[in-house]
C-alpha cells in the first residue's frame, strides 16, 4: 500500500503546490484590489491556514454533512415537524432569523467568491473559496427551513423582497452592505474576524441550543450544520488578523480601527439576537447576559489577551457593550413590541412567570426599569388598547435601529448623538455608532434609511398601509400582536386536536 502523505505536506502540495507566479501579466493588474486599503503584505507564504483542509477532504466532509442534514430536513417535512415546537410564538424568533440572516449568507457566498479571485495569497484563496461554498450551502439549507415553515406560518412568503425594503431588516442588510462595499482586508476583519470569531457564537450557539430545547428540529439541524463550517470560518478570521499584524507594523493601526468599528457594528446587530433569546424562546437556555459573559467577555477576553503581543487592544467601546448586557434585550423588545404592526412577525404581552425569570436573570435592571412598562402594556391590552406607536421612529444613521438605546450611565435617558457633515446634521444612537460615522461620513450619508425613504415618498405611499403593501406584508396575518392572530388560532386548533381525534387534514 502506498504510504500516506502526512497532513502538513499534503496541505502544502494541494494549496501552494497548485499555484503559480504570473509571468506575462503584472500581478497588480490581476489582483487590483488588495493594496488600496494601505495594508502591506511582504510574503504571502507566511499564511498558514490552521485547518489543513484540502479540496478532496473538504468535499468528502461536506458531502457527509449534507447527507445528514437533508435526511433530517426530509424527516421534518414528512413527519409534521412544525407540530413539535413548543409554541407558535417561538416562530417569531425563527422568522426574524430566517428573513434577517439567510440573505446575508447568500451575500457572504458572493463576496467570498470575489475574495477567492482577488486575494493573491494561495492559502487565503483556498480558504475563501471553501467559505464561499459553505455560505451558499447555508443559504440553501435555511431556505429549505423557510419553505417548510412558510406552509403553515405567516410572514415568510417573500423574504428576498422584504429584505430590501422592510425597516428592521435594513439593520442586517446595511451591516452586510457596509462590509461588501469595503476593501478585501476590511471585509475579512469585519466578517471573518469581528463577526465570525468574536461574535458569531452569540448568534448560533446558545440560540441553536435554544432551538433544540424548543423542539425546532429544522433550525437546530441547519444551525449546527452551518456552525460546523463556522469553526473553520472563525479560524480563518483569526489567521487573517495574525497574518496582517505579523506582516508589517504599519498594518496594526489600520486593523485596530477595523476591529473597533466592526465590533460595535456586530454588537448592535446582535441586540436583535439578545431580544430573541430573552423574549421569544418559550423555553430558555440562558439569558442574553449570560451568553454575553460566556462568549464576549470570557472568550473574547482570552482572545484579546493573546493579540496584545501585536499591539492590539480590546475594541473601543467594549466596556460600554458589556455594560449594555443588562438592558439591550429589553430595549430592543420594547422597540419591536410597539412597531409590530409594521413587522412580519408578532410580539405579545409577557406573562408573569416569564417576567419572574427576567427579573432573576437581570436583578439590577428588570424590575426597576422594564417590568413596569411591560405591566402597563399588558394592562392596556386587557382594556382593548394594545399599544402601537403610530409615529415613525428616528433611525441611527449607522446601525439603522430606531433610536431607543440609552446613555451608558443612565438607562432612562435615550442616547442621542449628532454629527455635522457638509452642512447637514446626522444622528447616531451611541458613541460607538458616532465614532463609525465620523470616520467615514462620506459613506454613511448614503445610507438607505427606511423611515427617511418613507417620508421622501419612495416606499409605496404616505400611509402606513401603503408602505406595508409595498413591503408585501399580508395585513392582519403577518403583523400585529400574536394575541388574536390567525397564527394563534391555528396553533390553538392544533393543540386542541391533540386531545380530540380528528380526521386527517
Amino acid at each position, binding site marked *: 500500500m502506498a504510504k500516506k502523505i502526512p497532513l502538513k505536506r499534503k496541505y502544502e502540495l494541494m494549496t501552494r503546490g497548485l499555484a503559480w507566479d504570473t509571468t506575462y501579466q503584472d500581478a497588480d493588474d490581476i489582483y487590483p484590489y488588495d493594496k488600496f486599503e494601505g495594508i502591506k503584505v511582504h510574503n504571502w507564504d507566511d499564511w498558514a491556514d490552521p485547518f489543513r483542509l484540502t479540496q478532496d477532504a473538504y468535499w468528502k466532509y461536506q458531502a457527509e454533512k449534507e447527507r445528514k442534514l437533508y435526511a433530517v430536513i426530509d424527516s421534518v417535512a414528512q413527519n409534521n415537524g412544525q407540530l413539535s415546537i413548543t409554541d407558535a410564538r417561538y416562530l417569531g424568533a425563527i422568522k426574524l432569523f430566517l428573513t434577517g440572516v439567510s440573505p446575508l449568507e447568500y451575500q457572504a457566498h458572493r463576496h467570498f467568491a470575489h475574495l477567492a479571485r482577488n486575494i493573491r495569497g494561495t492559502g487565503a484563496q483556498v480558504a475563501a473559496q471553501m467559505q464561499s461554498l459553505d455560505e451558499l450551502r447555508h443559504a440553501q439549507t435555511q431556505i429549505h427551513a423557510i419553505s417548510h415553515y412558510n406552509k403553515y406560518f405567516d410572514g415568510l412568503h417573500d423574504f428576498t423582497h422584504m429584505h430590501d425594503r422592510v425597516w428592521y431588516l435594513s439593520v442586517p442588510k446595511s451591516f452586510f452592505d457596509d462590509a461588501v462595499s469595503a476593501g478585501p482586508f476590511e471585509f475579512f476583519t469585519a466578517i471573518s474576524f469581528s463577526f465570525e470569531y468574536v461574535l458569531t457564537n452569540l448568534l448560533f450557539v446558545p440560540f*441553536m441550543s435554544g432551538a433544540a430545547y424548543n423542539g425546532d428540529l429544522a433550525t437546530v439541524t441547519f444551525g449546527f450544520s452551518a456552525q460546523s463550517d463556522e469553526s*473553520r470560518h472563525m479560524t480563518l478570521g483569526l489567521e487573517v488578523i495574525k497574518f496582517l499584524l505579523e506582516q508589517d507594523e504599519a498594518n496594526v493601526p489600520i486593523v485596530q480601527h477595523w476591529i473597533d468599528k466592526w465590533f460595535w457594528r456586530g454588537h448592535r446587530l446582535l441586540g436583535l439576537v439578545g431580544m430573541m433569546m430573552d423574549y421569544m424562546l418559550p423555553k430558555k437556555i440562558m439569558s442574553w447576559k449570560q451568553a454575553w459573559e460566556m462568549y464576549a467577555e470570557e472568550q473574547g477576553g482570552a482572545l484579546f489577551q493573546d493579540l496584545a503581543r501585536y499591539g492590539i487592544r480590546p475594541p473601543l467601546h467594549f466596556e460600554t457593550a458589556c455594560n449594555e448586557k443588562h438592558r439591550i434585550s429589553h430595549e430592543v423588545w420594547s422597540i419591536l413590541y410597539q412597531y409590530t404592526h409594521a413587522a412580519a412577525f408578532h410580539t405579545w404581552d409577557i406573562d408573569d412567570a416569564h417576567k419572574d425569570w427576567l427579573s432573576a436573570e437581570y436583578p439590577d435592571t428588570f424590575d426597576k426599569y422594564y417590568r413596569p412598562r411591560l405591566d402597563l402594556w399588558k394592562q392596556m391590552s386587557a382594556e382593548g388598547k394594545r399599544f402601537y406607536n403610530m409615529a415613525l421612529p428616528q433611525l441611527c444613521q449607522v446601525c439603522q435601529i430606531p433610536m431607543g438605546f440609552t446613555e451608558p450611565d443612565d438607562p432612562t435617558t435615550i442616547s442621542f448623538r449628532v454629527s455635522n457633515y457638509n452642512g447637514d446634521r446626522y444622528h447616531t444612537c451611541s458613541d460607538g455608532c458616532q465614532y463609525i460615522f465620523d470616520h467615514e461620513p462620506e459613506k454613511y450619508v448614503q445610507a438607505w434609511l427606511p423611515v427617511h425613504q418613507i417620508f421622501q415618498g419612495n416606499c409605496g405611499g404616505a400611509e402606513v398601509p401603503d408602505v406595508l403593501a409595498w413591503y408585501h406584508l399580508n395585513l392582519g396575518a403577518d403583523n400585529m400582536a400574536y394575541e388574536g392572530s390567525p397564527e394563534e388560532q391555528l396553533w390553538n386548533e392544533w393543540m386542541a386536536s391533540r386531545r380530540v381525534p380528528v380526521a386527517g387534514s
Partner: protein
Amino acid sequence: MNIQPVSITLQNTEDARPIIEAILADNPAATVSHYPAMVKIDAPGRIAVVADSVTERIGRDWDPQELHLSVITLNGNINEDDDVFELSWN
C-alpha cells in the same frame, strides 16, 4: 504557558460522544457543561484531541479531520496534525 481558557463545543451526538470522552480523559483540567444538543468543554491554556484515544474508543482509525462533522465552535489557536488536534494560546 498562557492559561487563558480555551474551549471546544461539540454536538451531542453518537459521533461526538467518544470524542468528548477522549478529550476529558486526556485533559484532566478540562471541565464540561451540558446544554440542549451540545456539550461545551473548557480548559485553562490547552485542549488536545488525541487521535489514538478516539480510535481506541470507536474501534477503527479516527482522523482528526472528522472533527469537522461534530464541532460547533472553538476558541484558541489551532494546531492540526495527523495524530492530534490542539487548541492553545501563545
